[in-house]
């Protein structure tokens, strides 16, 4: 079957056609084991860990539309930012401080923006779609930048107060609560996304990515499916944004605009786009490298990021997990021979 234009050559393959294999493999437990182990072994880095988990959630939402549905977007930060600001404004200005409620509101706000913009941009393709996502994100950025009384503008929104989760677990200074809270939510969303990808709905998405015209021809409701997944992805991104607000107790203007969208894309590409666990590996490695290298060699950091992107596109289209898959396949072949 001829691969479509969106993801051709990324090395994404599935043994059973477009529907992913729904059985759990033992390797899928590894990320969760590692996350729990990190909680006990690295108690000094839990705030950083919470940030990584938040970005994994964010990357998962992008993977859903970019990797599985093949929607090319440069403005995914709009939903992240709307979620972050919705939670921040409610908590700082209106005194709504319950974390669960804030997450729900953020998901709702991002979802409404997702369905409103998705209904429009998903009618277009190619450059027009790319430009529309970019312009919508830019409008969100401008609003946040100019509506200073609400958002704090360029100074950011401070004074965000969050009450304990379920009235029991208070956000502590070491990030213990934040880490576990993020991990719990990530687990929930991972389960949801995994179920979705393995369902017929997920198979439709992959089909649309590979060949929208043929999916039309066999009677799949292409546009409706795309709007649905776009809205869902927006809601997940909104939850990730609200999580960032809750763990930082601050919202900066840098959650919106082109830069966070581009950065997120870099993370996802590094891990491997169109793979569930690419969204796990990418942010972990990117943020760790940023934490270590960007402080020591700030002037070379972007040079390295750029070089990495170019090299991944030219030589390793499946990202790190694609490389790992290739190695595993080679070892297996050698073992058989």
């Amino acid at each position, binding site marked *: 079957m001829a691969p479509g234009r969106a993801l051709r050559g990324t090395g994404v393959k599935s043994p059973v056609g477009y529907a992913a294999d729904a059985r759990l493999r033992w390797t899928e437990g590894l990320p969760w084991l590692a996350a729990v182990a990190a909680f006990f072994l690295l108690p000094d880095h839990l705030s950083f860990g919470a940030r990584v988990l938040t970005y994994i959630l964010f990357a998962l939402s992008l993977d859903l539309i970019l990797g599985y549905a093949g929607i*090319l977007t440069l403005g995914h930060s709009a939903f992240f930012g709307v979620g972050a600001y919705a939670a921040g404004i409610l908590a700082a200005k209106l005194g709504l401080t319950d974390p669960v409620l804030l997450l729900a509101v953020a998901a709702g706000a991002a979802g409404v923006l997702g369905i409103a913009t998705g209904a429009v941009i998903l009618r277009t*393709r190619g*450059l027009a779609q790319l430009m529309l996502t970019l312009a919508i994100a830019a*409008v969100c950025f*401008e609003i946040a930048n100019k509506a200073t009384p609400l958002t704090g503008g360029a100074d950011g929104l401070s004074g965000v107060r969050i009450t304990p989760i379920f009235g029991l677990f208070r956000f502590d200074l070491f990030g213990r609560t934040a880490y576990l809270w993020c991990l719990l939510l990530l687990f929930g969303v991972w389960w949801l996304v995994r179920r979705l990808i393995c369902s017929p709905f997920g198979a439709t998405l992959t089909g649309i990515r590979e060949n929208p015209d043929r999916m039309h021809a066999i009677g799949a409701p292409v546009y409706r499916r795309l709007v649905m997944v776009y809205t869902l992805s927006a809601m997940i991104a909104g939850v990730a944004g609200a999580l960032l607000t809750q763990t930082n107790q601050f919202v900066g203007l840098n959650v919106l605009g082109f830069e966070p969208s581009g950065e997120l894309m*870099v993370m996802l590409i590094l891990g491997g786009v169109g793979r569930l666990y690419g969204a796990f590996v990418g942010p972990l490695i990117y943020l760790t490298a940023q934490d270590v290298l960007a402080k020591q060699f700030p002037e070379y950091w972007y*040079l390295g990021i*750029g070089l990495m992107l170019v090299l991944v*596109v*030219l030589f390793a289209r499946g990202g790190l997990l694609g490389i790992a898959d290739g190695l595993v396949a080679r070892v297996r072949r050698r073992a058989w021979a």
Partner: protein
Amino acid sequence: MEAAASSLVSIAFHGVAYGMILYVISVGLSVTMGLMGFTNLAHGVFAMAGGYILTSSISRFGLGFPLALGFAFVLVATASVVLERCLYSRLYAASELEQVLFTIGLIFMAVAIAQLIFGTLQQPVLLPDALRGQFRLLGREFPAYRVFLIVGSGAIVAALWFGVERTRWGAMVRAAVDNRVMAQSIGINTKRLFALTFALGSGLAGLGGALGAEIIAVQPTYPFEHLVYFLTVVAIGGLGSLRGPFVAALFIGVTDTACKYWLPQFGAFFIYIATIAILLWRPAGLFGVRA
């Protein structure tokens, strides 16, 4: 009444000057995207390079202004051919996502390199004496450099349009935009045509960046900050068209200037809203050959 008229004239004048520069920078992007189907987000890098070549060849090497402009064009065009042959050409058949990622990577690298060489500060432009001061026309004063920009860009645009509409090379480019496979099969060397057109487009971007260095500040974040504007010109104008981006660039130039003058608190808001509205109305752009 007189004050309103003079602010209108002033906005139209500065807007047109800005729009002309936007067009000279972006027209290459429209042609290469229409011709090769390559989503080149790194086009602004060529404009930035042109700006840096102009400012540093004047301030560091003491070259004259016209010579520095020529340098900006030639160096950027030459460098772009090397890039096209070594890197871009490998990705002509690749997916849109890969082209976007690859060119974002190029932007990141260019930003870092510019920062390493020139630092983060804005580069000052040393204009020759003839282009400083004011120019009197119909009882009004206009900044001489902006007048030069409008006239100079106008000449470039005229030469470009003549080249595309009246010469053999232009006919080949138009043929390849309309139907690449057919153009190839009647014996047009599309590979060489691509390289040549790409070089010309990038060279023009370099020239535009150099000419406009006084309007659009030359600093390392240039390719990121103005990416939306260059892409907007192309998207509104329509891929593969010469006239479309011209109309779009003038529209953006004048609207942006007017908004910044009358409604500075709204920033670039209206440009984005207008872009969204136009793209919803005509996804292929105003004069687009195809979506």
